């Protein structure tokens, strides 16, 4: 579904991603680990086509289309979506309006569906009429992001720390919905969605059962492996040591 080939990316003239290569097949979910500042969010923003992320080398192929230079909304139309870690506040634009937009349906028809989707995330109709992200708590931001993704229902979904700032009770709820969004409740041969998830904690991972995990260091995918093993390794030895051990195995 997604092929990233030898990608080098600059932000404000500084090289953040270096010769990065990554393949995600249809039906797969990949987890992305790595210390702060290693380039995880930059990778997601580049895949999504944010203008500040300049591709210097390499290319991104999504569903067999070279999207390296497409604007964000064109990429979204092809079937990708993103749950942001720190989305901006937009005064006067209600969360309900945002969900309607992502549903892409006539307003009247959409309204009922929005309420039904919100109910699944325990989101009240009052919350839907609030300005998007304005004064939202950490947990509310995540729920709002996932609600929008739920309405959009993209084939390839990126999650940037969907669990940070979320309380234990809601982590289970969010974890289950993400896993459903990514077809994890279906048999492997029936899974058509794909995902790339950045996370610092293992709590969401237990619901996701990712197929593969990558550790990013200094703008590159430094090592990849089975999620359980990689996680154990990171916990036991830290990111750098984990990469060292991976390299030895190679």
């Amino acid at each position, binding site marked *: 579904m997604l092929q990233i080939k030898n990608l080098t990316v600059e932000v404000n003239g500084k090289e953040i991603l270096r010769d990065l290569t990554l393949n995600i097949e249809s039906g797969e979910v990949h987890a992305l680990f790595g210390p702060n500042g290693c380039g995880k969010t930059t990778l997601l923003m580049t895949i*999504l086509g*944010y*203008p500040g992320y300049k591709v210097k080398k390499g290319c991104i192929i999504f569903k067999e289309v070279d999207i390296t230079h497409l*604007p*964000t*909304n064109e990429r*979204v*139309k092809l079937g990708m*979506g*993103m749950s*942001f870690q720190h*989305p*901006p506040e*937009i*005064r*006067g*634009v209600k969360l309900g*309006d*945002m969900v309607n*937009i*992502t549903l*892409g349906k006539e307003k009247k028809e959409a309204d009922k569906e929005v309420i039904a989707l919100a109910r699944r995330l325990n989101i009240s109709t009052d919350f839907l009429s609030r*300005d998007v992200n304005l004064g939202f708590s950490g947990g509310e931001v995540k729920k709002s992001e996932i609600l*929008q993704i739920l309405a*959009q229902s993209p084939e390839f979904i990126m999650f940037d720390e969907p669990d940070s700032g979320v309380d234990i009770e809601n982590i289970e709820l969010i974890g289950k919905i993400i896993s459903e969004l990514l077809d994890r409740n279906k048999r492997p041969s029936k899974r058509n969605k794909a995902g790339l998830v950045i996370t610092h904690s293992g709590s969401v991972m237990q619901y996701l059962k990712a197929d593969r995990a990558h550790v990013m260091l200094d703008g590159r995918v430094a090592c990849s492996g089975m999620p359980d093993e990689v996680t154990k390794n990171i916990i036991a030895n830290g990111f750098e040591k984990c990469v060292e051990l991976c390299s030895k195995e190679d």
Partner: protein
Amino acid sequence: MNENTSPDEDIAIERFTTGKEHKPIKSLDEFPEEYRDDILDAGIEPIGKNRAGSFLQQDDSVIYSNAEHEGLEIMGTADALKKYNWLKDYLWKIVPSDMDKYTADVELEHGQGYFIRSKAGSKVTVPAQACLFITSDNSGQKVHNIVIAEENSELHIIAGCSVSHTVNSALHLGVSEFYVKKGAKITFTMIHNWSEGMEVRPRTAVVIEDDAVFIDNYILMTPVKSLQTYPTAYCVGRNARATFQSIVYATGSTKVDMGARAVLQGNNSRAEIISRAIATDHAKIISRSDIIGKGANAKGHIECTGLLLSDDAEIDSIPELKAMCKDLELSHEAAVGKIAEEEIQYLMARGLSKEEATSLIIRGFLNVDITGLPDALARDIKKMLDMCLEKVV
């Protein structure tokens, strides 16, 4: 702002002639078809549906006035002055006739304008509508409006000022004096629907007595040559409250110098001034706001934000606070800038094009929750605002 581009330009009043005379109409149905859209765009309901009464002035002639509600009076000011001897005590009481040459000119002309009054104790929750309409080219419309909400009454007004699409150039001078007596409430929602050739100088003051409420909503979305206004609310009574909310979208070469001032004299009085200004093309906006605190425990807040959509446009935001007593809470927040790229990008990540994203952000910016109105009226106003927005964004 550059000195020589200030909207506070002198207008040669004598350049404008007296408008044509028009015959009264018996019902709003008789209002000429050709002008119907012009007043519709100013929020006026041409058949008077869901209105407690209507007032319609074309150029200098009052062509229709009718009150459906027994607690309500609507007529031309000149007519009201003939009918009520006491009314002269309300004339030029809070807007001095020697304030400037425009007020002086209005006094000399003895023009019409509307007189709207809700009787003591009557709650007229359905809005009354008043329309001042210009159809003579090169004319000057000079009006004196008086609005009185007697004790414990409630009055909602939708006022539309409009100019015919056939007029190239005209002047509107409007003096308005509002009296909100003890325990009364007035909400006044005004839509200005002018055109590129219009010079507009409204002069407005409001007196708010004990436990009384005045809410002013102002919407300007069409271009105007120049508009200058700075209404003042005197919260003289204990617990008197004033709210000014304005939404201005200035396009073309529009020059707008507008604001609102509240003088908090009464103990525990409150004022809130909220403005949203957008300037595009070559438009220039000066957005003023001023709260003066004198009464004990008075509270005032100013929130003025501006959005600039063109490098050739200007917004000058001037919030002022003056404290004259120690037990006060006065505050302001002001912000002027362009649309944040991050917001556009976020909406694009939900599938909107750049243009769609920009338009949604502008609509959101102008989406002020207008408070204090009865539900049906709030829905009406919201619809009007959407209608106005539809044309510009």
